[in-house]
């Protein structure tokens, strides 16, 4: 795809908006009613699967199985569970590695592809990096179970060089964060490279031209001009990557199966909530864990959003 084409496509889909001001004043009654009709279906879904579950989770977390108010009792109970701290520590380690890796690599690769390549070649690279995105979820974990098994892996030489002679050795619990980062990176990074490339593409050429005139090389221009200009995108990526990271469930669950139980079945907080709910029938405790996750996600998102001005709900 040529730059020109990309620009055109970007415009079609609304990347470079010319904000039109001055909404024609409508008779409020009619337009208002239409508005309500148009949002009604979505609003029902929002209530049913956004607001009610949140409210229900809050209710459950503050009561016991007989519906009696227990204050912070459920929260204290789950925090004191010996598996609570390790589960949150596990995803903390995972998140730090995952966020650093995905942010650094996607931005660096996007800068390289933007500055160093003919657009056609850059498009080919982006597509190749993007392909594993089709294997998200269970499929990606299964593929990596094979990749990490020295007996069948095409990278068995590398695994053996690292002293990992058997599948069991690879799946040692201590290696889990690295394995999960690998899987997440493999399926997710390509999509973000595409996004970052598109963001860089939106920077007007004159800006970079000016930087060149001032004697900035490509790396300098990237560091001082391009990266600051796509900061919003990086924040957006960080929020979504963080949210996805806190929710780990299927990946550690499958690795637990494949490791024949040597990996803990409560590796991530979501798994712990699952065990509470379906092994103990303790939905109140499970809800308390869910609320911890929810609060964590929202706090981090709120900090990032307010710091960056992303998602400004603008009005008139």
């Amino acid at each position: 795809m040529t730059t020109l084409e990309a620009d055109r496509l970007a415009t079609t889909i609304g990347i470079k908006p010319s904000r039109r001001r001055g909404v024609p004043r409508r008779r409020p009654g009619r337009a208002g009613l239409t508005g309500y009709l148009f949002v009604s279906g979505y609003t029902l879904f929002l209530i049913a699967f956004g607001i009610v579950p949140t409210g229900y989770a809050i209710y459950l977390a503050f009561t016991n199985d007989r519906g009696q108010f227990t204050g912070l009792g459920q929260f204290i109970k789950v925090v004191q569970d010996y598996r609570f701290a390790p589960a949150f520590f596990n995803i903390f380690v995972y998140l730090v590695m995952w966020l650093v890796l995905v942010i650094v690599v996607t931005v660096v690769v996007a800068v390289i592809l933007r500055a160093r390549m003919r657009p056609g070649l850059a498009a080919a690279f982006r597509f190749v990096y993007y392909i594993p995105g089709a294997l998200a979820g269970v499929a990606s974990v299964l593929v990596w179970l094979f990749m990490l098994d020295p007996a069948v892996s095409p990278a068995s030489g590398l695994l053996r060089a690292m002293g990992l002679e058997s599948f069991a050795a690879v799946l040692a619990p201590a290696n889990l964060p690295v394995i999960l980062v690998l899987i997440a990176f493999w399926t997710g990074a390509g999509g973000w490279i595409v996004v970052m490339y598109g963001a860089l593409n939106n920077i007007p050429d004159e800006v970079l031209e000016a930087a060149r005139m001032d004697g900035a090389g490509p790396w300098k221009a990237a560091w001082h001009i391009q990266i600051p200009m796509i900061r919003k995108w990086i924040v957006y990526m960080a929020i979504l990557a963080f949210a996805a990271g806190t929710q780990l469930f299927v990946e550690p669950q499958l690795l637990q199966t494949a490791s024949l139980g040597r990996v803990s079945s409560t590796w991530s907080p979501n798994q712990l909530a699952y065990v509470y709910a379906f092994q103990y029938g303790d939905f109140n405790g499970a809800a308390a864990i869910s609320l911890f996750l929810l609060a964590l996600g929202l706090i981090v998102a709120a900090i990032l959003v307010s710091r960056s001005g992303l998602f400004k709900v603008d009005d008139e």
Partner: protein
Amino acid sequence: MTSSTLAQRRPTDGRRASRFASTLIVVVILALLVVFFVLPVIWLLLAPTKTAGELISQFPLSFGSFDQVGAAWQHLTAFQDGVIFVWLKNSAIYSAGSLVLTLATSVPAGYALALTRFRGRKSLLTITLVVMIMPSAALVLPTFLELNLFGLIGTVWSIILPFSFYPFGVYLVYIYFSTSLPRDLLSAARIDGCNEWQVFWSIALPLAKPVVGLIAFFSFVNNWNNFFLPYLVLPNSDQFPIQVGLNQLLSSTPSFNPVAGKGLNITSPELALAIIIAILPVLILFLFSQRALVSGMLAGATKE
């Protein structure tokens, strides 16, 4: 002028050495990433051509034979009397059903949020944004309980309805309409006597094709790959979508589960074949929408 896109075509002598080093770094980075991203895919595509034994004994990237693919196919389809087809059918029903509901609700909603004014509009928009960045898996358990309350557990609706709630789609449509649809056009249509529904249906909607396609893509792929909710709400194997089915296949594969796997013909090649079949619809979608995606994924965050 130092090394840059322009300078690459007209290199100056003094800079050659450093440019060579920096080009070398770039090439190495890009090539390593290509290997990292592509090697597992190639391995996966070749795996069903070999027997489980050959997978271990032969070179990992060698090609076995087409006969072996046929054998793997037969073993796989024999698993629980061809349950894999049922799983695929289920996935198709769940994904397509919620896709229809997603489009039917999110496109009008995004349109109304962007182009009409009504009380509560701003709060609806804010709530949408908050829900969008909420870690959704945290809501899966309460959603399960809610579905249970309404007696929907184990039915098709327990999957389709929650999947149809897609705030990201509403946000995309909102961005699209509020930034790139000329309002004058809508006013003109109204003056010409179109009612609000006609304005939406015959003016706005045809112009929104790119964003509708984008939501359709994301919604379908997300739903196809979703695991947690179906894993919780569907008790029976014949209701599983393919993702949950893959999980069951994994627990039936001797190399990963020696106890449960005995007596079954599900080994590594069969598992690899099942993965390929499971991702095929999404992979095909990827190939066809590649161009649109490159620009489309961006629309999610631009707000100028």
